[in-house]
């Protein structure tokens, strides 16, 4: 890395720490556009298992850059230390902006609760996964492994995003652990350590154990445990599941995380700008915030600014909440707690709770996101937005029974909330599930306003 860049990285790091951010070491690396496209396709990692979909993504990023339709300025990976890639050839100011941005992301990774259970050595994990898949390809043929991966990847959103947060009860494990064996001479072993008694038939009949014991969203995990598959196939299901879980918190905090990083790069960099740089900075910032649609940078940034302002001006608490809208806009009670509140927000919220709590009509009015005459539609628009952020925008599907109708069939249920599934795709997924499970599979959902059972293999 260039010396100039290195010294700026150090300077910005010190400023970030002094401002109250806390993060592990950050390794910056400048890369060219092709390498950036590769890293983006690989989800930020230098090694992934072989699969054509990375190639398809890579092509898209590369062509997007080549035809000047967009460039990736920055990539940050949630590892320890944090790895960050800067696009070589950007102006020094752009790199400074990106580095400040990256420090804030690193702070977010370290402090936000959603990231707490995520392993920090994913770099190694991804490498292991790649090696595992390659080995399977050598042994079982590249095409059959690829085909299996295609099937597994079509199930990649059938996970329980909360799985890493679930504390498993201790007893359950004990029950399964084999009793400790006393060490004796081999010929005495059957007498000293007798094999466990087989359950009596009467008992078995009295306590039918449902499978899964409770309905679960972790379909991939269930299949990896119970589907009649070869060990390497189960391994691949585990890999897909684990990688999918790794990206859950990033998807769930996109708006907050980008808003946080934008807030901090602005705050850390603005005081350091020369007049000429200020113009370039304004341009970069405009490019970042002005792009249309649901722009996580803009929405996150504006909301955080709003939170800061509200807590600086005392616009919170029961007294404030009770005011009518017009008075809320004028209310002021200087308490100066803005920054403190921001640090709290970055720890406890995900996009869903963040927007639920702070995306208010007052905010939308103040920032000109809605015109006053649009206010009646605000609640509905907010509801749509929140729905879209729920479960990363995927339908929620539970596995309810693996012995449906007492025939070893899979029974899944879509938690219908007013929006219907893409039937063609759902059926294709069911076909894949059927191939994995070997018995018919069913998905209960709603079609045309009526309950319906989609099936494959039946």
């Amino acid at each position: 890395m260039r010396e100039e860049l290195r010294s700026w990285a150090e300077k910005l790091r010190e400023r970030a720490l002094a401002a109250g951010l806390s993060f592990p070491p950050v390794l910056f690396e400048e890369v060219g556009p092709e390498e950036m496209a590769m890293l983006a396709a690989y989800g930020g990692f230098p090694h992934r298992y072989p699969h054509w979909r990375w190639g398809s993504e890579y092509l898209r990023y590369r062509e997007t850059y080549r035809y000047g339709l967009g460039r990736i300025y920055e990539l940050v990976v949630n590892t320890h230390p944090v790895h960050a890639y800067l696009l070589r050839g950007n102006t020094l100011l752009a790199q400074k902006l990106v580095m400040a941005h990256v420090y804030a992301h690193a702070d977010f990774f370290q402090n936000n609760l959603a990231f707490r259970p995520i392993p920090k050595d994913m770099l190694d994990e991804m490498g292991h996964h790649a090696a595992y898949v390659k080995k399977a390809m050598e042994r079982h043929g590249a095409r059959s492994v690829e085909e299996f991966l295609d099937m597994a990847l079509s199930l990649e959103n059938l996970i329980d995003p909360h799985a890493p947060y679930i504390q498993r009860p201790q007893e359950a494990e004990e029950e399964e652990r084999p009793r400790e064996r006393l060490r004796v001479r081999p010929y005495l072993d059957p007498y000293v350590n007798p094999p466990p008694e087989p359950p009596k038939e009467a008992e078995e009949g009295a306590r039918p154990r449902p499978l899964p014991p409770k309905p679960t969203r972790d379909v991939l995990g269930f299949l990896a445990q119970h589907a009649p598959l070869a060990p390497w196939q189960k391994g691949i299901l585990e890999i897909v599941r684990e990688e999918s879980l790794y990206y859950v918190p990033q998807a769930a905090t996109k708006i907050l995380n980008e808003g946080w990083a934008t807030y901090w790069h602005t705050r850390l960099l603005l005081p350091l700008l020369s007049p000429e740089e200020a113009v370039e900075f304004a341009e970069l910032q405009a490019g970042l915030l002005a792009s249309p649609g649901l722009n996580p940078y803009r929405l996150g940034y504006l909301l955080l600014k709003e939170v800061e302002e509200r807590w600086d001006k005392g616009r919170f608490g029961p007294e404030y909440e009770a005011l009518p809208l017009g008075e809320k806009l004028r209310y002021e009670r200087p308490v100066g707690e803005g920054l403190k509140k921001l640090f709290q927000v970055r720890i406890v919220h995900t996009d869903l709770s963040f927007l639920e709590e702070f995306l208010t009509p007052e905010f939308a009015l103040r920032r000109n996101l809605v015109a006053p005459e649009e206010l009646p539609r605000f609640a509905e628009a907010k509801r749509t937005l929140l729905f879209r952020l729920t479960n990363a925008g995927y339908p929620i599907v539970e596995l309810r029974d693996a012995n449906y109708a007492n025939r070893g069939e899979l029974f899944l249920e879509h938690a219908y909330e007013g929006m219907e599934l893409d039937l063609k795709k759902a059926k294709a997924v069911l076909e894949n599930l059927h191939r994995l499970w070997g018995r018919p599979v069913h998905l209960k959902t709603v079609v045309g306003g009526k309950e319906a059972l989609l099936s494959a293999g039946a």
Partner: protein
Amino acid sequence: MRPIERDLLRFKEIVRGEVRKRVREFLTREELFGQMEGRLVSIPLPQLELPKIVYGEPWGEGLGLGGAGSEGLGPGGHVPVAELELEEFLDLVGEALRLPRLRPKGEGEVTEEAFRHTTIARKGPRGLRHVRRTLKESLKRSLLTGEYRPEDPLLVPEREDLRYKAPRSRPRPHAQAVVLFALDVSGSMREEELRLVKTLSFWITLWIRRHFPRLERRYLLHDAEAWEVSEEEFFRAREGGGTRLSSALLLAEEILKGYPEAFYNRYLYHFSDGENWQGDTPLALEALRRLLPGLALYGYAQVQGPYGQGRFLEEVQEELGRQEGLATAEVRGKEDLPLALRRLLGG
């Protein structure tokens, strides 16, 4: 090879396989026709998308809170579409349909321009720096920012001012071609037959252009008389009176005088239902005899509707069947297109 290149190759291999498998379907996909001017062809390959359980309807628009799409510092979400360079796509189609390679005829050789540095770029090696253009940029900038002082006109080029001589991105083949399409609008061409003609002429154009990037196109309509029209007009169906196939050939002969054989590969395509006025066929064949030696190809496609009784195809084949440069095909429906296309291109 880097692993990502291997993934990319595998992806392209899969795309190619899909294109080959579904090439007949692509032939008649009219939504492709509009895209062909660009460099990339988006190919709808739903098979290549890994299916997932997702919602069916798109999300509603949400005031200023956000609609679709976003751009920023990092990579965005993924939209799986297979895109191919037009050339690559055409080669695949050509391969799958076994379309023949077109060879430049006569003296209109493909000569490539020397690899010369004829444009200006913002990046390049120091040795190719273009001093005059660099200083010009520097002057422009200093005038704009107000740094320029006439009493001390010193120009210090900055990074952004630097200009370099650069090679043209692609050497251009010199071979040129002209293609004439003639369409018989006398009687029985209906909407459906016209669509077949459109499809054929579209792919013929692309395939010729694949070999001769400098391609000119001319369009003729005829019933008893022939007249020249624009490309759009060509595909608008209408009905005329009687038929004289010779009229189109004579007009083509006239137009082709503007494209000397020595410099152009000349293609003439003629679409008709094959019904001709009695007495005109000898004239048409006579005109063809004159035309054929100077043409790269004369393609005659007899597009017949349900009542087609035309005999011109047989007559041409009887009289001129052995002649080089003659390509004929009979088209009764969509299923004949792949073979007709191959035949009409001389395969």
